[in-house]
């Protein structure tokens, strides 16, 4: 009798120990998410004060504060409000959106190399932008034509893949292969287009594809933030489904999930999010591949936490890279796409080499 009570209380202590440990495990994820948020604010604060036009830290903050109530008038105010802030905010929003889309695409395709770009989005957008750039020389509103065209063409591969799943089941393999095929088709079409175009237009089209935050304006921020918020919640709602898919399609189905429908839904939302961003920024590629991996290394693969965490890491990363891109060989401003890959690549390699456990 006595020994039985003992084992019973032993069981109880063990259980509360595991419960505590699990709570700490969840707590650590919140800490990471919160720290990434703080990091974004710090980088944004520093970034606003940097630039070829000298403005001190205190000036910047008082300008931001005054600007909330008044239209910018002095040169300093215009520099901060019309040049630096939109660029910084777009950098954050784009980083967040691309990283979230990347995390979800990797999850549904169960592939560490996947990103929305694997599904042909970037090549579609590049082709759309190239058409607009090469045809719109001298036409008023050319910029809007580029944005609109890039947006529409970037979604074409997605629609084709969704269409194909009517004939073939929506397995990760089918979708990745279809995406790669799409990538080749659109890249070839773009090359063909460039082959017959003038040098100036070709340069413009090429630089569009590298990705740059230089075209940021308040006009771009509104649609991007609406789409970001509109996509974030449905993706968070599907986080459990993606977790279950990680255990294999069969297990996910046995847990009551309509795997194929979920996969197509998540792919479509992620693609839409990516398209809405890259039509303003060009194809900034690296963030959506790397930010989710960095977050997984720290907090693991639970998508309920991975979605916000990779978003914030992506935001911090893109903003950090853009700050460097603006300052490193000032007054020349590099396109951020170059910096994300040049700095992000080695950083990512370093993290892969020194990781202690398999996280994927």
């Amino acid at each position, binding site marked *: 009798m006595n020994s039985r009570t003992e084992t019973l209380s032993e069981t109880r202590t063990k259980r509360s120990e595991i419960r505590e440990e699990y709570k700490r495990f969840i707590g650590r994820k919140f800490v990471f998410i919160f720290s990434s948020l703080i990091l974004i604010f710090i980088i944004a604060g520093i970034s606003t004060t940097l630039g070829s036009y000298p403005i001190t830290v205190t000036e910047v903050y008082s300008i931001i504060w005054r600007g909330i109530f008044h239209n910018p008038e002095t040169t300093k105010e215009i520099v901060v409000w019309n040049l630096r802030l939109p660029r910084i905010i777009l950098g954050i929003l784009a980083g967040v959106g691309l990283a979230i889309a990347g995390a979800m695409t990797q999850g549904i395709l169960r592939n560490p190399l996947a990103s929305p770009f694997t599904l042909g989005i970037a090549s579609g957008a590049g082709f759309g932008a190239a058409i607009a750039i090469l045809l719109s020389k001298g036409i008023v509103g050319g910029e809007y034509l580029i944005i609109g065209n890039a947006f529409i063409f970037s979604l074409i591969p997605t629609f084709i893949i969704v269409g194909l799943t009517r004939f073939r089941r929506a397995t990760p393999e089918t979708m990745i292969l279809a995406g790669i095929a799409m990538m080749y088709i659109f890249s070839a079409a773009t090359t063909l287009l460039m082959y017959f175009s003038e040098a100036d237009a070709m340069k413009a089209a090429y630089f569009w594809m590298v990705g740059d935050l230089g075209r940021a304006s308040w006009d771009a921020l509104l649609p991007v933030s609406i789409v970001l918020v509109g996509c974030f919640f449905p993706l968070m709602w599907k986080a459990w489904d993606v977790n279950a898919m990680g255990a294999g399609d069969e*297990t996910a189905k046995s847990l009551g999930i309509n795997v194929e429908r979920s996969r197509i839904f998540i792919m479509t939302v992620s693609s839409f999010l990516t398209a809405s961003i890259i039509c303003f920024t060009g194809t900034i590629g690296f963030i959506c591949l790397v930010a989710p991996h960095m977050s997984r290394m720290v907090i693991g693969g639970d998508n309920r936490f991975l979605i916000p965490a990779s978003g914030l890491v992506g935001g911090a990363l893109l903003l950090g890279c853009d700050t460097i891109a603006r300052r490193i060989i000032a007054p020349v401003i590099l396109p951020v796409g170059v910096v994300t890959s040049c700095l992000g690549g080695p950083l990512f390699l370093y993290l892969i080499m020194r990781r202690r456990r398999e996280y994927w």
Partner: protein
Amino acid sequence: MMKLKVQDIEFSYASVPILKEVCIELAASEMLSVVGPNGAGKSTLIRCIDRILKPQRGIILLDERDIKELRLMELAKKMGYIPQSTSRVFPATVFDAVLMGRRPHLGWRASEKDIDKVLETLHMLHIEDLAMRDIDELSGGQLQKVFIARALAQDPDVLLLDEPTSNLDIKHQLEVMDIIKNIVREKGISAIMAIHDLNLASRYADRIIMMNSGKIFAAGNPDSVLTPDNIKQVYGVEATVNNNNGRPYIVPIRPVK
């Protein structure tokens, strides 16, 4: 009343028939083993019953209700599926993997009740010490227990197992089979398992179904199904069948030329 009735199920992959006119009845708290050579349709049958695959013809009744009329989440509260331990898994802690079994029951947040259920299940399978380990670091036997724990966390009435002992050493084979047997006895859960090892099937199952090329060849208690004649016809193997504590024990001798 029968817990589960499978009536005239037919399934084919791209016009290659895999299952033909399969009928099964399963009582509450019964353990049914499905045996047969490779490609006999054992795994396909298990998957059809859990609606992972959709049979082209036939009806599956769970508690007298056609499972086609159940929503997927409803079905997931009644049936648990346990894949082979060879399935590729993605890193996640054991706790999170088992918590996934609560998916059909929870909204978006996992409540204290769900966490309690996970702890209880881990305790039942004696894998509490693994709780915060990553599942990709586990051995095949440990992983199989995690899969069973996940299915049990679903609170199902019926467990479907796809070769739960393949890849396990003999100790883990017995442990896993004992766990399943106890669950069936104590919780009144019914189990259907596809299994290759005829002697494990014989030792643990209440009833055995022997399949051959998509059809049921023989069904009944182990004694009536596991006969030298049936084994010869279905597997093409000559075997002697000994009596071992009241259960048939199969010793394969040579393949039939």
